[in-house]
Protein backbone atom coordinates (compact mmCIF):
# COMPACT_ATOMS: atom_id res chain seq x y z
CA UNK A 1 0.00 0.00 0.00
CA UNK A 2 3.00 2.28 0.25
CA UNK A 3 5.69 3.04 -2.18
CA UNK A 4 8.33 1.72 0.20
CA UNK A 5 8.23 -1.73 -1.33
CA UNK A 6 10.52 -0.85 -4.18
CA UNK A 7 11.95 -4.31 -4.08
CA UNK A 8 9.12 -6.82 -4.24
CA UNK A 9 10.67 -8.97 -1.53
CA UNK A 10 10.59 -6.17 1.03
CA UNK A 11 6.92 -6.79 1.58
CA UNK A 12 7.65 -10.31 2.76
CA UNK A 13 9.31 -9.02 5.90
CA UNK A 14 6.57 -6.50 6.56
CA UNK A 15 3.94 -9.23 6.51
CA UNK A 16 0.44 -9.05 5.11
CA UNK A 17 -1.42 -5.78 5.19
CA UNK A 18 -5.06 -6.10 6.28
CA UNK A 19 -7.45 -5.05 3.59
CA UNK A 20 -9.00 -2.40 5.83
CA UNK A 21 -5.74 -0.53 5.70
CA UNK A 22 -6.37 0.05 2.03
CA UNK A 23 -8.88 2.70 3.01
CA UNK A 24 -10.29 4.65 0.12
CA UNK A 25 -9.90 3.34 -3.41
CA UNK A 26 -7.21 5.89 -4.09
CA UNK A 27 -5.19 5.20 -0.97
CA UNK A 28 -2.02 4.55 -2.86
CA UNK A 29 0.25 7.55 -2.83
CA UNK A 30 0.31 9.24 -6.22
CA UNK A 31 3.42 8.26 -8.05
CA UNK A 32 5.55 10.07 -10.57
CA UNK A 33 3.86 9.62 -13.96
CA UNK A 34 7.08 10.15 -15.83
CA UNK A 35 8.23 6.67 -14.84
CA UNK A 36 5.93 5.12 -17.45
CA UNK A 37 5.60 6.67 -20.92
CA UNK A 38 2.01 5.60 -21.37
CA UNK A 39 0.97 7.03 -18.03
CA UNK A 40 2.62 10.34 -18.82
CA UNK A 41 0.88 10.41 -22.18
CA UNK A 42 -2.45 9.61 -20.58
CA UNK A 43 -2.06 12.51 -18.18
CA UNK A 44 -1.23 14.77 -21.10
CA UNK A 45 -4.03 13.72 -23.35
CA UNK A 46 -6.84 12.74 -20.97
CA UNK A 47 -6.10 14.99 -18.05
CA UNK A 48 -9.81 15.34 -17.30
CA UNK A 49 -10.46 11.59 -17.28
CA UNK A 50 -7.40 10.17 -15.52
CA UNK A 51 -8.02 10.59 -11.83
CA UNK A 52 -5.18 8.78 -10.15
CA UNK A 53 -1.93 6.97 -10.71
CA UNK A 54 -0.03 4.76 -8.33
CA UNK A 55 2.66 2.12 -8.37
CA UNK A 56 1.82 -1.24 -6.87
CA UNK A 57 4.14 -4.13 -5.94
CA UNK A 58 7.27 -2.32 -6.97
CA UNK A 59 6.76 -1.67 -10.66
CA UNK A 60 3.09 -2.18 -11.55
CA UNK A 61 1.67 1.08 -12.82
CA UNK A 62 -1.99 1.51 -12.04
CA UNK A 63 -4.12 4.23 -13.62
CA UNK A 64 -7.62 5.12 -12.53
CA UNK A 65 -9.84 6.47 -15.30
CA UNK A 66 -13.45 7.59 -15.36
CA UNK A 67 -15.75 4.67 -15.99
CA UNK A 68 -17.82 6.39 -18.64
CA UNK A 69 -14.77 7.03 -20.81
CA UNK A 70 -13.16 3.61 -20.58
CA UNK A 71 -13.69 2.64 -24.23
CA UNK A 72 -12.28 5.92 -25.48
CA UNK A 73 -9.14 5.68 -23.37
CA UNK A 74 -8.58 1.95 -23.79
CA UNK A 75 -9.14 2.27 -27.53
CA UNK A 76 -6.55 4.99 -27.70
CA UNK A 77 -4.10 2.88 -25.68
CA UNK A 78 -4.67 0.00 -28.05
CA UNK A 79 -4.40 1.88 -31.33
CA UNK A 80 -1.90 4.63 -30.71
CA UNK A 81 1.39 3.58 -32.35
CA UNK A 82 3.39 4.88 -29.41
CA UNK A 83 1.66 2.52 -27.01
CA UNK A 84 -0.16 -0.30 -28.83
CA UNK A 85 -1.53 -2.30 -25.90
CA UNK A 86 -2.68 -5.01 -28.27
CA UNK A 87 -3.03 -7.78 -25.68
CA UNK A 88 -5.77 -7.64 -23.08
CA UNK A 89 -4.47 -10.04 -20.49
CA UNK A 90 -7.37 -9.87 -18.09
CA UNK A 91 -10.59 -8.14 -17.24
CA UNK A 92 -11.50 -8.63 -13.63
CA UNK A 93 -13.18 -6.89 -10.77
CA UNK A 94 -12.41 -6.25 -7.12
CA UNK A 95 -14.91 -5.67 -4.33
CA UNK A 96 -13.34 -4.36 -1.14
CA UNK A 97 -16.64 -4.34 0.74
CA UNK A 98 -17.83 -1.67 3.11
CA UNK A 99 -19.87 0.06 0.45
CA UNK A 100 -16.80 1.02 -1.52
CA UNK A 101 -17.16 1.17 -5.27
CA UNK A 102 -16.31 -1.89 -7.30
CA UNK A 103 -13.15 -1.68 -9.34
CA UNK A 104 -13.17 -3.07 -12.83
CA UNK A 105 -9.58 -3.80 -13.75
CA UNK A 106 -8.12 -4.06 -17.23
CA UNK A 107 -4.71 -5.67 -17.41
CA UNK A 108 -2.96 -4.57 -20.58
CA UNK A 109 0.23 -5.71 -22.25
CA UNK A 110 1.91 -4.19 -25.24
CA UNK A 111 3.64 -6.83 -27.30
CA UNK A 112 5.64 -4.39 -29.49
CA UNK A 113 6.79 -2.26 -26.59
CA UNK A 114 6.88 -5.01 -23.94
CA UNK A 115 5.15 -2.83 -21.45
CA UNK A 116 2.36 -3.51 -18.96
CA UNK A 117 -0.33 -1.19 -17.68
CA UNK A 118 -3.23 -1.70 -15.33
CA UNK A 119 -6.31 0.45 -15.82
CA UNK A 120 -8.99 0.67 -13.17
CA UNK A 121 -12.50 2.04 -13.36
CA UNK A 122 -14.49 2.69 -10.21
CA UNK A 123 -18.17 1.78 -10.28
CA UNK A 124 -20.54 2.86 -7.53
CA UNK A 125 -22.62 -0.01 -6.18
CA UNK A 126 -25.90 1.54 -7.32
CA UNK A 127 -24.69 2.05 -10.90
CA UNK A 128 -22.88 -1.09 -11.96
CA UNK A 129 -22.75 -0.38 -15.65
CA UNK A 130 -19.80 0.14 -17.93
CA UNK A 131 -19.23 -0.01 -21.65
CA UNK A 132 -17.97 -3.28 -23.05
CA UNK A 133 -14.51 -3.40 -24.60
CA UNK A 134 -15.33 -6.50 -26.63
CA UNK A 135 -15.25 -4.42 -29.86
CA UNK A 136 -11.61 -3.62 -29.06
CA UNK A 137 -10.41 -7.01 -27.86
CA UNK A 138 -12.40 -10.17 -28.56
CA UNK A 139 -10.79 -11.64 -25.47
CA UNK A 140 -13.00 -9.42 -23.39
CA UNK A 141 -16.08 -11.36 -24.40
CA UNK A 142 -15.78 -14.20 -21.92
CA UNK A 143 -13.85 -12.17 -19.35
CA UNK A 144 -16.67 -9.65 -19.14
CA UNK A 145 -19.19 -12.45 -18.93
CA UNK A 146 -17.26 -13.76 -15.95
CA UNK A 147 -17.27 -10.36 -14.25
CA UNK A 148 -20.98 -10.05 -14.96
CA UNK A 149 -21.62 -13.52 -13.59
CA UNK A 150 -19.66 -13.15 -10.36
CA UNK A 151 -20.00 -9.42 -9.62
CA UNK A 152 -23.14 -8.31 -11.40
CA UNK A 153 -21.51 -5.61 -13.50
CA UNK A 154 -23.50 -4.97 -16.66
CA UNK A 155 -21.40 -4.36 -19.76
CA UNK A 156 -23.23 -2.14 -22.21
CA UNK A 157 -22.92 -3.30 -25.80
CA UNK A 158 -21.66 -6.77 -24.94
CA UNK A 159 -22.75 -9.14 -27.72
CA UNK A 160 -23.72 -12.05 -25.46
CA UNK A 161 -23.95 -11.13 -21.80
CA UNK A 162 -24.89 -14.39 -20.05
CA UNK A 163 -23.64 -16.20 -17.00
CA UNK A 164 -20.58 -18.25 -17.81
CA UNK A 165 -19.55 -20.09 -14.64
CA UNK A 166 -22.65 -20.34 -12.51
CA UNK A 167 -25.74 -22.21 -13.74
CA UNK A 168 -27.68 -20.14 -16.25
CA UNK A 169 -30.74 -20.03 -13.97
CA UNK A 170 -28.77 -19.29 -10.80
CA UNK A 171 -31.08 -17.21 -8.63
CA UNK A 172 -28.94 -16.37 -5.60
CA UNK A 173 -27.09 -13.38 -6.99
CA UNK A 174 -23.48 -12.71 -7.79
CA UNK A 175 -21.24 -14.82 -5.56
CA UNK A 176 -17.98 -12.86 -5.41
CA UNK A 177 -19.60 -9.71 -4.05
CA UNK A 178 -18.69 -9.02 -0.46
CA UNK A 179 -22.36 -8.89 0.51
CA UNK A 180 -22.89 -12.46 -0.71
CA UNK A 181 -23.03 -15.03 2.12
CA UNK A 182 -20.35 -17.69 1.92
CA UNK A 183 -22.80 -20.58 1.64
CA UNK A 184 -25.26 -18.85 -0.63
CA UNK A 185 -28.70 -17.46 0.10
CA UNK A 186 -30.72 -20.68 -0.07
CA UNK A 187 -30.62 -23.67 2.24
CA UNK A 188 -28.54 -26.66 1.21
CA UNK A 189 -31.70 -28.64 0.52
CA UNK A 190 -33.02 -25.93 -1.77
CA UNK A 191 -29.65 -25.65 -3.51
CA UNK A 192 -29.53 -29.40 -4.06
CA UNK A 193 -33.08 -29.46 -5.35
CA UNK A 194 -32.42 -26.62 -7.76
CA UNK A 195 -29.15 -28.19 -8.88
CA UNK A 196 -30.82 -31.46 -9.77
CA UNK A 197 -33.61 -29.65 -11.56
CA UNK A 198 -31.16 -28.12 -14.00
CA UNK A 199 -31.68 -29.24 -17.54
CA UNK A 200 -28.24 -30.37 -18.61
CA UNK A 201 -29.17 -29.95 -22.24
CA UNK A 202 -29.76 -26.27 -21.63
CA UNK A 203 -26.20 -25.63 -20.53
CA UNK A 204 -25.66 -24.51 -24.10
CA UNK A 205 -27.60 -22.09 -26.23
CA UNK A 206 -29.01 -23.36 -29.55
CA UNK A 207 -26.25 -21.72 -31.56
CA UNK A 208 -23.62 -23.59 -29.55
CA UNK A 209 -25.48 -26.87 -29.81
CA UNK A 210 -25.79 -26.50 -33.55
CA UNK A 211 -22.03 -26.60 -33.89
CA UNK A 212 -21.04 -30.03 -35.04
CA UNK A 213 -24.55 -31.15 -35.94
CA UNK A 214 -24.11 -30.41 -39.58
CA UNK A 215 -21.07 -31.29 -41.62
CA UNK A 216 -18.89 -28.28 -41.84
CA UNK A 217 -17.24 -27.49 -45.09
CA UNK A 218 -13.52 -27.12 -44.89
CA UNK A 219 -12.18 -25.18 -47.82
CA UNK A 220 -8.57 -25.89 -48.42
CA UNK A 221 -6.41 -23.45 -50.26
CA UNK A 222 -5.62 -24.65 -53.74
CA UNK A 223 -2.36 -26.49 -53.66
CA UNK A 224 0.37 -24.73 -55.54
CA UNK A 225 1.32 -26.98 -58.40
CA UNK A 226 4.81 -28.36 -58.60
CA UNK A 227 5.91 -26.98 -55.22
CA UNK A 228 5.41 -30.17 -53.26
CA UNK A 229 9.14 -30.99 -53.31
CA UNK A 230 9.99 -27.79 -51.51
CA UNK A 231 7.93 -28.76 -48.47
CA UNK A 232 9.81 -30.26 -45.57
Amino acid at each position, binding site marked *: MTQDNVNGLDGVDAGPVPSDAAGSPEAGAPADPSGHPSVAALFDRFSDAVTHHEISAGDEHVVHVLADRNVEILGWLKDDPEHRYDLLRDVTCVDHGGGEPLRVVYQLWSIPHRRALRVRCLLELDALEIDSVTPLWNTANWLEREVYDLFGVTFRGHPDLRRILMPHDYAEGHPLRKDFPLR*GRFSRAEQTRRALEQDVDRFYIPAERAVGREPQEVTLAAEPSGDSETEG
Partner: protein
Amino acid sequence: MGVELPGGGTSARTGGILGAGSPTFLTTKVDYVVNWARRSSLWPMPFGTACCAIEMMAAFATDFDLSRFGMERMSFSPRQADVLICAGRVPYKLAPVLRRIWDQMPQPKWCVSMGACASTGGVFDVYSMVQGIDTIVPVDVYVPGCPPRPEGLIYGLMMIQEKVRRETITRHYDLREEDPARVAMPRASEHEIAGLAGPFGNSTRQNQLAGGGEVATTTGSDDLDS
Protein backbone atom coordinates in the same frame (compact mmCIF):
# COMPACT_ATOMS: atom_id res chain seq x y z
CA MET B 1 -43.76 -58.19 -1.53
CA GLY B 2 -45.51 -59.93 -4.33
CA VAL B 3 -42.47 -60.14 -6.52
CA GLU B 4 -42.28 -63.29 -8.56
CA LEU B 5 -38.97 -64.81 -7.63
CA PRO B 6 -36.96 -66.61 -10.27
CA GLY B 7 -37.51 -69.93 -8.58
CA GLY B 8 -41.28 -69.67 -8.60
CA GLY B 9 -42.02 -68.54 -5.05
CA THR B 10 -43.30 -65.17 -4.02
CA SER B 11 -41.21 -64.43 -0.96
CA ALA B 12 -38.34 -65.68 1.08
CA ARG B 13 -40.83 -67.56 3.29
CA THR B 14 -43.02 -69.31 0.81
CA GLY B 15 -40.34 -71.07 -1.03
CA GLY B 16 -39.71 -71.88 -4.60
CA ILE B 17 -36.46 -73.43 -5.47
CA LEU B 18 -34.62 -70.11 -5.25
CA GLY B 19 -36.79 -68.42 -2.68
CA ALA B 20 -36.49 -70.84 0.16
CA GLY B 21 -35.84 -69.39 3.55
CA SER B 22 -32.72 -71.40 4.02
CA PRO B 23 -30.14 -71.38 1.27
CA THR B 24 -30.34 -74.42 -0.91
CA PHE B 25 -27.56 -76.13 -2.74
CA LEU B 26 -28.69 -74.54 -5.98
CA THR B 27 -28.95 -70.96 -4.69
CA THR B 28 -25.62 -71.02 -2.97
CA LYS B 29 -23.91 -72.34 -6.04
CA VAL B 30 -25.71 -69.90 -8.31
CA ASP B 31 -24.80 -67.11 -5.94
CA TYR B 32 -21.22 -68.24 -5.91
CA VAL B 33 -20.90 -68.31 -9.67
CA VAL B 34 -22.80 -65.07 -10.25
CA ASN B 35 -20.94 -63.17 -7.57
CA TRP B 36 -17.61 -64.54 -8.67
CA ALA B 37 -18.30 -63.39 -12.21
CA ARG B 38 -19.51 -59.98 -11.09
CA ARG B 39 -16.74 -59.16 -8.68
CA SER B 40 -14.05 -60.43 -11.01
CA SER B 41 -15.02 -58.16 -13.86
CA LEU B 42 -16.14 -54.91 -12.31
CA TRP B 43 -15.87 -52.18 -14.88
CA PRO B 44 -15.33 -48.78 -13.30
CA MET B 45 -16.83 -45.59 -14.64
CA PRO B 46 -14.26 -42.92 -13.72
CA PHE B 47 -15.89 -39.64 -12.79
CA GLY B 48 -12.75 -37.68 -12.01
CA THR B 49 -13.19 -33.99 -11.34
CA ALA B 50 -10.14 -32.95 -9.34
CA CYS B 51 -6.85 -34.02 -7.79
CA CYS B 52 -8.31 -37.33 -6.59
CA ALA B 53 -8.52 -38.27 -10.24
CA ILE B 54 -4.72 -38.07 -10.44
CA GLU B 55 -4.45 -40.71 -7.73
CA MET B 56 -7.17 -42.68 -9.48
CA MET B 57 -5.10 -42.63 -12.68
CA ALA B 58 -2.10 -43.77 -10.68
CA ALA B 59 -4.16 -46.65 -9.35
CA PHE B 60 -5.04 -47.62 -12.92
CA ALA B 61 -1.46 -47.36 -14.12
CA THR B 62 1.23 -49.98 -14.00
CA ASP B 63 2.64 -49.46 -10.51
CA PHE B 64 -0.63 -50.29 -8.82
CA ASP B 65 -2.49 -51.85 -11.73
CA LEU B 66 -6.16 -52.24 -11.03
CA SER B 67 -6.28 -54.82 -13.82
CA ARG B 68 -5.18 -57.36 -11.25
CA PHE B 69 -8.65 -57.11 -9.72
CA GLY B 70 -10.58 -57.57 -12.92
CA MET B 71 -10.94 -53.87 -13.62
CA GLU B 72 -9.11 -54.19 -16.85
CA ARG B 73 -11.35 -51.90 -18.77
CA MET B 74 -12.21 -48.32 -17.90
CA SER B 75 -15.75 -47.84 -19.04
CA PHE B 76 -16.08 -44.31 -20.26
CA SER B 77 -19.69 -44.97 -21.12
CA PRO B 78 -21.99 -45.37 -18.12
CA ARG B 79 -24.05 -47.89 -20.11
CA GLN B 80 -21.35 -50.51 -19.74
CA ALA B 81 -20.15 -49.63 -16.25
CA ASP B 82 -20.57 -51.38 -12.91
CA VAL B 83 -18.81 -49.07 -10.45
CA LEU B 84 -19.03 -45.30 -10.41
CA ILE B 85 -15.84 -43.86 -8.95
CA CYS B 86 -16.51 -40.24 -8.09
CA ALA B 87 -13.06 -38.79 -7.55
CA GLY B 88 -13.01 -35.14 -6.63
CA ARG B 89 -15.21 -32.25 -5.70
CA VAL B 90 -18.61 -31.93 -7.33
CA PRO B 91 -20.10 -28.46 -7.77
CA TYR B 92 -23.84 -27.97 -7.93
CA LYS B 93 -23.59 -27.28 -11.64
CA LEU B 94 -22.21 -30.78 -12.11
CA ALA B 95 -24.73 -32.46 -9.81
CA PRO B 96 -27.30 -33.22 -12.54
CA VAL B 97 -24.54 -34.66 -14.72
CA LEU B 98 -23.39 -37.00 -11.96
CA ARG B 99 -26.97 -37.99 -11.26
CA ARG B 100 -27.70 -38.63 -14.93
CA ILE B 101 -24.60 -40.79 -15.28
CA TRP B 102 -25.71 -42.79 -12.25
CA ASP B 103 -29.22 -43.15 -13.67
CA GLN B 104 -27.76 -44.33 -16.96
CA MET B 105 -25.74 -47.13 -15.41
CA PRO B 106 -27.49 -50.49 -15.55
CA GLN B 107 -28.08 -52.59 -12.46
CA PRO B 108 -26.29 -54.06 -10.65
CA LYS B 109 -24.16 -51.01 -9.91
CA TRP B 110 -22.06 -49.69 -7.09
CA CYS B 111 -20.59 -46.33 -6.19
CA VAL B 112 -17.28 -45.35 -4.61
CA SER B 113 -16.95 -41.84 -3.18
CA MET B 114 -13.25 -41.12 -3.37
CA GLY B 115 -11.72 -38.45 -1.16
CA ALA B 116 -12.91 -35.90 1.34
CA CYS B 117 -14.59 -33.57 -1.16
CA ALA B 118 -16.76 -36.19 -2.81
CA SER B 119 -17.70 -37.67 0.57
CA THR B 120 -18.45 -34.50 2.55
CA GLY B 121 -17.62 -31.45 0.49
CA GLY B 122 -14.27 -31.26 2.27
CA VAL B 123 -12.95 -27.78 2.86
CA PHE B 124 -15.31 -26.42 0.21
CA ASP B 125 -18.21 -25.60 2.50
CA VAL B 126 -19.30 -22.83 0.14
CA TYR B 127 -22.14 -21.74 -2.08
CA SER B 128 -21.16 -23.79 -5.08
CA MET B 129 -20.28 -27.25 -3.77
CA VAL B 130 -22.30 -30.39 -3.18
CA GLN B 131 -21.80 -31.33 0.48
CA GLY B 132 -21.24 -35.02 -0.13
CA ILE B 133 -22.38 -36.87 -3.22
CA ASP B 134 -24.52 -39.13 -1.04
CA THR B 135 -27.11 -36.38 -1.21
CA ILE B 136 -27.27 -37.09 -4.96
CA VAL B 137 -26.49 -40.78 -5.47
CA PRO B 138 -26.29 -43.76 -3.10
CA VAL B 139 -22.71 -44.48 -2.06
CA ASP B 140 -21.40 -47.93 -1.15
CA VAL B 141 -17.85 -47.16 -0.07
CA TYR B 142 -16.29 -43.91 1.10
CA VAL B 143 -12.54 -43.70 0.66
CA PRO B 144 -11.11 -41.08 3.03
CA GLY B 145 -8.08 -39.01 2.23
CA CYS B 146 -7.15 -35.77 0.57
CA PRO B 147 -6.47 -37.29 -1.84
CA PRO B 148 -6.35 -40.98 -0.89
CA ARG B 149 -3.34 -42.91 -1.99
CA PRO B 150 -3.88 -45.49 -4.74
CA GLU B 151 -3.75 -48.21 -2.10
CA GLY B 152 -6.74 -46.54 -0.48
CA LEU B 153 -8.76 -46.65 -3.67
CA ILE B 154 -7.75 -50.25 -4.27
CA TYR B 155 -8.83 -51.13 -0.74
CA GLY B 156 -12.17 -49.40 -1.32
CA LEU B 157 -12.71 -51.31 -4.53
CA MET B 158 -11.80 -54.56 -2.81
CA MET B 159 -14.47 -53.72 -0.23
CA ILE B 160 -16.90 -53.44 -3.12
CA GLN B 161 -15.77 -56.88 -4.24
CA GLU B 162 -16.34 -58.20 -0.74
CA LYS B 163 -19.79 -56.65 -0.77
CA VAL B 164 -20.55 -58.36 -4.06
CA ARG B 165 -19.27 -61.67 -2.73
CA ARG B 166 -21.78 -61.60 0.13
CA GLU B 167 -24.80 -60.85 -1.99
CA THR B 168 -27.37 -63.54 -2.62
CA ILE B 169 -30.20 -63.49 -5.07
CA THR B 170 -32.64 -64.78 -2.50
CA ARG B 171 -32.17 -61.94 -0.06
CA HIS B 172 -31.07 -59.11 -2.30
CA TYR B 173 -33.42 -59.72 -5.14
CA ASP B 174 -35.43 -56.50 -4.95
CA LEU B 175 -32.71 -54.48 -3.28
CA ARG B 176 -31.80 -52.98 -6.62
CA GLU B 177 -35.19 -51.86 -7.79
CA GLU B 178 -35.31 -48.24 -8.78
CA ASP B 179 -38.35 -46.03 -8.69
CA PRO B 180 -38.60 -44.21 -12.01
CA ALA B 181 -40.36 -41.36 -10.26
CA ARG B 182 -37.23 -40.77 -8.18
CA VAL B 183 -34.94 -40.27 -11.13
CA ALA B 184 -33.03 -37.02 -10.76
CA MET B 185 -34.48 -36.36 -7.31
CA PRO B 186 -32.30 -35.62 -4.29
CA ARG B 187 -31.47 -38.86 -2.60
CA ALA B 188 -31.11 -37.59 0.95
CA SER B 189 -34.05 -36.04 2.72
CA GLU B 190 -34.40 -32.31 3.02
CA HIS B 191 -33.70 -32.55 6.74
CA GLU B 192 -30.46 -34.42 6.17
CA ILE B 193 -29.24 -32.02 3.51
CA ALA B 194 -30.15 -28.98 5.57
CA GLY B 195 -28.15 -30.41 8.45
CA LEU B 196 -25.06 -30.08 6.30
CA ALA B 197 -25.27 -26.31 6.51
CA GLY B 198 -24.47 -25.84 10.17
CA PRO B 199 -22.69 -22.67 11.21
CA PHE B 200 -19.28 -24.25 10.85
CA GLY B 201 -20.07 -26.82 8.23
CA ASN B 202 -19.73 -30.52 8.23
CA SER B 203 -17.10 -30.95 10.90
CA THR B 204 -19.25 -29.25 13.50
CA ARG B 205 -22.22 -31.26 12.42
CA GLN B 206 -20.28 -34.45 12.91
CA ASN B 207 -19.28 -33.25 16.37
CA GLN B 208 -22.90 -32.50 17.08
CA LEU B 209 -24.01 -35.90 15.89
CA ALA B 210 -21.45 -37.45 18.21
CA GLY B 211 -23.30 -35.94 21.15
CA GLY B 212 -22.25 -32.33 21.12
CA GLY B 213 -25.68 -30.74 20.85
CA GLU B 214 -28.53 -30.17 18.49
CA VAL B 215 -27.99 -30.42 14.78
CA ALA B 216 -28.67 -27.20 12.97
CA THR B 217 -31.28 -27.85 10.37
CA THR B 218 -32.46 -24.71 8.69
CA THR B 219 -29.64 -22.22 8.64
CA GLY B 220 -28.93 -20.74 5.30
CA SER B 221 -27.22 -17.64 6.54
CA ASP B 222 -23.57 -16.98 7.04
CA ASP B 223 -23.88 -15.28 10.39
CA LEU B 224 -21.09 -16.83 12.39
CA ASP B 225 -21.83 -14.87 15.53
CA SER B 226 -25.26 -16.27 16.20
